[in-house]
């Protein structure tokens, strides 16, 4: 059953079509990946699903357990169990790691925050009372954000580029967290342009220039991404046509209709 459904979603920002008639179904309990090259529209999709400022003027719909999220504020979406970890996490001057994590916790006790920090690979004693500010590295903030998502026990966690800013040694830790979340019943949406992250998923969507190009098994999408997207040098210009596509893939590839006629 799909817990989240994106239906014919089109989003235009500053006169530029960012998402183009996207339809995606996210089945409950799965790890989904949304892959695509830089500029494909992945973060915009996540922002629209979360209901962030500036992402409200879209066509189509977003359904959470069958109900439209159109008139639902960010915090209400979060209360339904939908959350997002940012590609580049925010900094909070003077807000302690402990307060930040517990703010999203279902059960507000210290052990919960400590356990979450341990799980993401940060020593609680040295982090709990630091501020979530510029004195933490991007990778540390990313892990702390992940900890705050764990304690929230979300229904759906979208993770935008979960490996960005994370050192190689810690990537496995992040992947472990993803597996723990899945085990606890969270549906995960990994937003990524990395094949290593894609590998963690059970199922994947490939988007390019705001359009769905393909979906299916990780093996299939991974193969496609490697052979078509990585060598492709088009710059995701909405008015350009995709030239470097291997034509034998055209049956699974919706050839660019071009926005010229819009």
């Amino acid at each position: 059953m799909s817990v989240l459904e994106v239906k014919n979603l089109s989003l235009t920002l500053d006169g530029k079509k960012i998402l183009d008639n996207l339809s995606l179904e996210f089945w409950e309990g799965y790890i989904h990946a949304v892959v695509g090259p830089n500029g494909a529209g992945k973060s915009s999709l996540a922002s629209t699903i979360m209901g962030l400022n500036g992402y409200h003027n879209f066509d189509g719909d977003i359904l959470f357990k069958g109900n439209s999220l159109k008139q639902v504020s960010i915090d209400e979406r979060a209360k339904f169990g939908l959350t997002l970890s940012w590609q580049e996490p925010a900094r909070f001057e003077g807000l302690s790691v402990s307060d930040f994590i517990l703010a999203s916790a279902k059960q507000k006790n210290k052990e919960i925050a400590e356990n979450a920090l341990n799980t993401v690979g940060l020593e609680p004693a040295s982090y709990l009372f630091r501020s979530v500010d510029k004195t933490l590295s991007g990778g540390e903030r990313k892990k702390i954000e992940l900890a705050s998502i764990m304690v929230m026990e979300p229904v759906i966690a979208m993770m935008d580029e979960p490996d960005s800013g994370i050192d190689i040694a810690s990537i496995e830790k992040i992947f472990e967290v993803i597996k723990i979340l899945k085990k606890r019943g969270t549906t995960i949406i990994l937003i990524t342009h990395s094949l290593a992250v894609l590998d963690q998923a059970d199922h994947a969507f490939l988007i390019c220039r705001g359009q769905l190009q393909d979906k299916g098994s990780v093996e299939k999408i991974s193969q496609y991404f490697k052979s078509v997207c990585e060598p492709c040098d088009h710059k995701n210009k909405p008015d350009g046509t995709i030239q470097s596509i291997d034509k034998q893939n055209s049956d699974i590839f919706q050839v660019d209709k071009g926005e010229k006629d819009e």
Partner: protein
Amino acid sequence: MNNDYATARDLYQQTDSDADVLTDPEIAHLIVNHDKVLGMHGVPGLNIKTEQIEQGLNIEIDLESQHKINKPVHLCFGMLPERGTQRIEMKVNIGDNSSIAILAHCVFPRAIKVKHIMNAEILIGENAVYSYQEKHVHSDSGGVEVIPKAKIVVGKNSRFSTEFVLLKGRVGIIDVDYAAEGLEYSVIDMNARISGLQDDVIKINEQAYLNGEHSTAVLTSKIAVRDRARAQINNKIVASAPYARGHVDCKEIVQDQGVANAVPIVEVAHPKAHVTHEAAIGSVDNKQLETLMSRGISEDEAVEMIIQGLLSK
């Protein structure tokens, strides 16, 4: 005296601090309600003298040389009545090689129209440390007016730090005016963290004159204005000695119809001195807000968390 002691405890309870400090023989204290001393206790090396004046008190605090006071000295300036003016004329003298930390509570919990005026002259000797933490408890009526003025001279190798925090209640009107002069190798560190609501007015005027070689100053203001509150921050550092270093830091969060204004002035009158400033005024950062909201925190709560974070140390 019993009655006074009860009043003193009443004042202290308002600050959420432990009233036991009033009975600890190692902790010096001075408790004032309006123009009356309710309690006073000294420790060796520290001499406190008071004299009643019209609507207030003259207070002389004298710390002899070579004395380090280990436990913070508690001062409490209260105005328990709903109306009135309290005028404190304070002279502080810190001897060489001495150190002291003062925790001053200003408590006006029932104020409808209360004015608290403080004029301080602070002289800090050499190799000395003077830290002054001022914590306010106001009523929620907005009827408090606080006007502290201080002139400070920070001696060679000495350190002056001050912090102004509103613990409870509404600002009303706060109009701070501090000017400090720093001699060789001295450190000046002034901090204000205040959040204004409704039609509160926050005015901060802090000046540091770095006249000694290698003297330093940091002026920090973290202010939030919500509703129709207004803030005007004029912080100035003048550096006129070699290797003098200064930094003015002003962060203001503006919500609703609040208005904030910051004028950092830096003046350098020696080629080997260096002063920097940063001022950031704006609404609560959208990404911070949306991050907290995406964890299920309401917009109002998220704004409060972000502001409390900014105002905390």
